[in-house]
């Protein structure tokens, strides 16, 4: 009880040692930024199974290690732009060309003209060399057959975009918020471009009140339709096909006058491994890689030498509008602003 107080005491030393250990611990944590060896670093919008397959093929062919970080389109776009001063990644793989264009506008992409681009259609290549398309997909309507037939036994499946305006579907349609999703923005532009500006907005203003919810994530509509929470959803056809392939009771309808979307790859300006980035892009655009990717992702390859997977329907066979991607990009701010006025 009666102890002489003297300094420094054991407690004092223990405190200092604890603080020192803490500082050392934080210091060790800070060594995470490793020096790259022969490597390429990829931000991947495409699914993890798909990027892992491409990475393994590329490494087997070149010996170059592939590190990838998979995330949603929006998250990776934000990340690339935020990191522009000191990029961590070399390549942005996948996602619609519109998003690559959006990043290009901020100056965060490098210029590269891959040899394979020469054989691609004009709509699948950036003329300035900022991005190149490697797959094609399209917008479609996903239907949960069980829920649809239970709720609407006497109504035929919607076959056209205009069929979605049936008031009986109120609360049973799910579509991503166009503000946060390039998929849904493509849908807006599809209606505006196929119907014209005024008639297009009339369509959208009629459809919006019928939609049950506008989730923020592009992956949500196929999930919500797949599990039977909603009867109808607007999504990419390849995503809907994959959910059906997994076992969900979804059927996919591709209405006439739909819009196609080019999935692209681009090189990030100032990335740590620019040479390997170019080699990786060349690989992704090769017939071999595109064939393997298409077989697993249910998309259509753009390389004319890549065969279509057995039993698959080419997206090129759908009834498309003549989609103007440049116009869509120019109108984006105006369209999304008006959408946010129209939809509460």
């Amino acid at each position: 009880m009666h102890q002489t107080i003297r300094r420094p005491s054991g407690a004092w030393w223990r405190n200092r040692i604890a603080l020192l250990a803490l500082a050392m611990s934080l210091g060790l944590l800070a060594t995470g930024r490793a020096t790259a060896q022969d490597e390429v670093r990829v931000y991947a919008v495409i699914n993890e199974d798909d990027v892992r397959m491409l990475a393994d093929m590329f490494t087997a062919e070149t010996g170059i290690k592939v590190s990838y970080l998979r995330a949603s389109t929006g998250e990776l776009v934000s990340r690339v732009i935020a990191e522009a001063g000191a990029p961590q990644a070399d390549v942005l793989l996948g996602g619609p060309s519109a998003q690559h264009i959006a990043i290009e506008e901020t100056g965060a992409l490098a210029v590269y003209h891959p040899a394979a681009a020469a054989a691609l259609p004009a709509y699948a290549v950036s003329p300035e060399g900022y991005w190149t398309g490697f797959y094609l997909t399209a917008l479609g309507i996903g239907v949960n057959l069980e829920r649809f037939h239970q709720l609407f036994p006497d109504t035929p499946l919607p076959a056209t975009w205009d069929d979605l305006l049936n008031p009986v579907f109120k609360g049973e349609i799910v579509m991503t918020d166009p503000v946060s999703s390039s998929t849904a923005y493509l849908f807006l532009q599809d209606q505006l471009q196929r119907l014209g500006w005024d008639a297009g907005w009339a369509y959208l203003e009629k459809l919006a009140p019928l939609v049950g919810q506008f989730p923020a994530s592009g992956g949500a509509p196929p999930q919500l339709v797949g599990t039977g929470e909603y009867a109808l959803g607007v999504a990419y056809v390849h995503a809907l096909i994959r959910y059906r392939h997994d076992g969900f009771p979804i059927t996919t309808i591709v209405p006439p006058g739909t819009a196609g979307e080019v999935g692209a790859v681009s090189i990030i300006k100032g990335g740590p491994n620019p040479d390997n980035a170019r080699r990786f892009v060349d690989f992704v655009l090769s017939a071999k890689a595109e064939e393997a990717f298409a077989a697993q992702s249910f998309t259509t390859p753009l390389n004319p030498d890549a065969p279509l997977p057995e039993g698959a329907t080419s997206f090129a066979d759908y009834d498309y509008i003549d989609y103007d991607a440049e116009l869509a990009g120019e109108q984006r701010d105006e369209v999304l602003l008006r959408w946010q006025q129209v939809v509460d």
Partner: protein
Amino acid sequence: MGLRSFGRLWRFDRGLLLAYGLVALFLLTFVVGPLVRVALEPTLADWRLVMTTPRWQRAALNTLITLGLSTVSSLLLGTVYAYAVTRARVPGARFFGVVPLFLLLTPPFVAGLAFILLLGRRGLLTYQLLGLETSIYGLHGLWLAQTLSFFPVAYLVLRSAFLAVDPGLEQAARGLGAGRGQVLRTVTLPLVTPGLLAAALFISIGVLGDFGNPMLVGGRFQVLATAVYTQLTGWASFGTSAALGLVLLVPAVVLFGAQQWVQAATRQRFATVGGRSSSLPAPTVAPWLRWALFTVCLLVTLFVAASQGVVLMGALTKLWGVDFTPTFEHAKYVLGHVGGLGNSLRFAATAALVCTVLSLLAAYLVQRAKVPLRRGLDLATLLPAAIPGTLMGVAFVLAFNTPPFQLTGTAAIIVIGMAVSYLPVGYRICAAAIDQLRPSLDESAANLGASRLRALTSIVAPLVRQALVATFVFCFVQSVGTLSTVIFLVSFDTPLASVTILNLADQGRWGRAAALASALIIVTMLSLALLYLITGRSLKQLEFSRAGG
């Protein structure tokens, strides 16, 4: 005034000044710095857009509505639950006391999926069992989801507060003839007022910044936090998302001010932890109340069990909710991704340690040491809770992407992001506990020649050890499952289980997401059990030596 205070500190207590400097430096660098970065993003056009768009005006109103509803319901449930397991000692109290941790542990998106699978239009409970065709999407579903998400916070804070109440005071009141209800209303609840205020503040601010729940079950009922996320991840509209995020700071500061005012008005009446602790047991509660409380605990536990059961089912069946064929393929996937699990645990433990030390130091500096600018210190510890995690994460990237603080891509930025995210709660837990200490305790130590820092480590910290453990546990559990802050901070060499789970769910790989979530929950609970064994033994030794002394 300021300089004189610093001079006095330097002469009498260099240790305290050093602690003050470290805390201030940390807060300036990792809280104020990123916030300033956020504040610099919006242009005048962004502000005009935010203020005039009807969608966001409605989102602001919706945010206030959920703020009120969810705060009250979470606080009520958390208080009742904490009272049940601490004072009322319902049957199975020890077991029930652990249950809320499972809710904290489950990663947001998996919790959301479980919620939908149980209570959705095709939910196991709603549709399959009860035949209901109800929709959980909207304000009502969000309210329920937020109550279940945030009541564990109230529970942890109130649990510490109830345990710190001196049973002698309650027994004295009973001895003077007060009935059970009167003791509860006039003695017990007033004594835990600091805890109630702290919990209310943090819940309300957590609700402000919550985006996981609104995203999954909000439906078309949009709040500002989801608007921040959609602006940020849609087309990288940093300016607009920053402006929306800053709007959330206004109610946060208002709430902070209100809490400070109420706490200052009531502080002197409630300091109770004195020189001699009582060994008297707490008064018993009426049998009917005891069983009513037991029922509440049981219902919460059943829901938690159902949620965990659904997640486990997803991990072990072929297709969650569709094809119930048993399979181990999802578990095999987890075995190939143990790196992320290890990172999540290691980073969370480090963040919890940082958070606990900072919380104790900051709480002591503000509550007892009367250092200069202590109100600013108090406010700075709170602000991270008001900014949606996604925006804070991007702010970290913008602030620390280039020298002199180049941390992007490192583990340190994740650890610091986690610690900053949960500092508001940890700090409040410690502050509430210190607030219940009689000031004479550490003043006596100072009069005997001990430094303030010595008083802190030798007297104050042992007395508030329950709060320190609660802070560590809370920060650790939350950090393991956290998503919004770290989603932009993970990198090629620093994967986290929680972000992988989100990715898997986003790709429709629910079996793998459920398997990884199950593994995360199991490993984290094992870690907590280990922590309990270690700290339990230490606490027993401490008790023994005190009794002997």
